[in-house]
């Protein structure tokens, strides 16, 4: 009690302070203290695991943590040295910002180019013969064409048909020509044939039955002393006709 009074009596000398509510003005989130103990225990267990040097199956090399501080400091020193601005070595603005994207794009393009083009291929030796083919179609085009024309004429279908047509024409012409020069044709073109053609057949039969002896023709012709050539015969027959009229 006395000590308690000792603890509080001093306030009587400080009225401003005495007037202030001595209750704790600070607060905590709702339920904070209810689980604080559990959280501290969990934190303690975690700390113990860390201090054991392994975490389940995870270990670190010997003396890792002893050397870690020095390694970090060395790394800081190295990176600090790299970060110093060197007027001789600079990069364009934003270079490192875009570098990763550029590398990715480049890798993609090169992979695409290196892939075998399964859809687009060329025959074997194509590019070796390509120059010669181009030249043949441009500079050497005339020589190539003329040789080609001759060969093509001989082997073309049109040429074959033309040849056959000419052969048929020649054959027909020959046949026609032979017919035109034959005796039958000649006879049909004579005067006697033409005159007899105008006389009806029945009249010719009647005349022959009445007037003609099979042996008379030769005798008639023989009696007149006419030659038996065609011209003489024709003249004799013409005279007979004139006499009969």
């Amino acid at each position, binding site marked *: 009690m006395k*000590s*308690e009074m000792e*603890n509080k009596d*001093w306030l009587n000398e*400080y009225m*401003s*302070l005495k*007037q*202030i*509510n*001595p*209750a*704790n*003005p*600070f*607060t*905590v*989130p709702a339920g*904070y*203290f209810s689980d*604080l*103990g559990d*959280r*501290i*225990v969990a*934190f*303690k267990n975690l*700390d113990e695991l860390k201090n054991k040097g392994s975490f389940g199956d995870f270990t670190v090399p010997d003396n890792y943590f002893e050397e870690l501080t020095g390694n970090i400091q060395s790394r800081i020193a190295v990176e600090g040295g790299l970060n110093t601005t060197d007027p001789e070595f600079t990069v364009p603005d934003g270079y490192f910002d875009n570098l990763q994207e550029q590398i990715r794009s480049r890798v993609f393009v090169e992979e695409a180019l290196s892939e075998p083009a399964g859809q687009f291929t060329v025959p074997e030796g194509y590019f070796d013969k390509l120059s010669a083919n181009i030249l043949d179609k441009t500079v050497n085009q005339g020589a190539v064409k003329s040789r080609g024309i001759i060969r093509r004429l001989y082997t073309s279908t049109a040429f074959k048909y033309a040849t056959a047509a000419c052969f048929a024409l020649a054959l027909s012409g020959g046949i026609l020509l032979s017919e035109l020069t034959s005796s039958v044709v000649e006879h049909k073109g004579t005067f006697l044939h033409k005159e007899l053609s105008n006389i009806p057949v029945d009249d010719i039969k009647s005349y022959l039955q009445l007037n003609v002896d099979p042996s008379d023709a030769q005798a008639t012709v023989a009696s007149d002393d006419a030659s038996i050539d065609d011209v003489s015969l024709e003249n004799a027959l013409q005279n007979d006709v004139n006499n009969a009229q």
Partner: protein
Amino acid sequence: MPIEVEDAEILSKFQDEKTRNEAFNLLLKKYQQKIYWHIRRMVIDHDDADDLVQDVFIKIWKNLAGFRSDAQLYTWMYRIATNECITFLNKKKQKNNVSLDDMDNTLADTLADSTYFDGDKAQRKLQEALLTLPEKQKLVFNMKYYDDMKYEEISQVLGTSVGALKASFHLAVKKIEAYLLSKD
């Protein structure tokens, strides 16, 4: 709710490996709030206090086996918590590259923005006044004003003589009073 278990029982159980975890759970239930508030009044921010209280109890777990009973258990834990707070605040100063005065301003800003402060205007002013004090004076005042600790107990925590602590405390109170009056 803190439980009423004797420190001797906790220490006894802790010595046995089979009951060590049980002893630690008992320790947590008994002292976690006291240690938390002690830290919280120093660092102001709840999240910082949450981190530190876990670190403190990890240290307690690691060193409790070597605890000598010539000091009280809770003053020993208070000492660990106090040292952790001072280390934390010094690191924060270095990290933010601020001076000691600017660190007080930083904590004042934290107090102003804190969601977990439910005090009235006067209580806020008191906290602001405390932030103007050197760390050891602030510690003495907090342990005396909020925790009702005896000078002898505070001496065990801070490793300072009772006389020096009394002087430090009265100096702190005067500064606070002057601050409160100046801001009226």
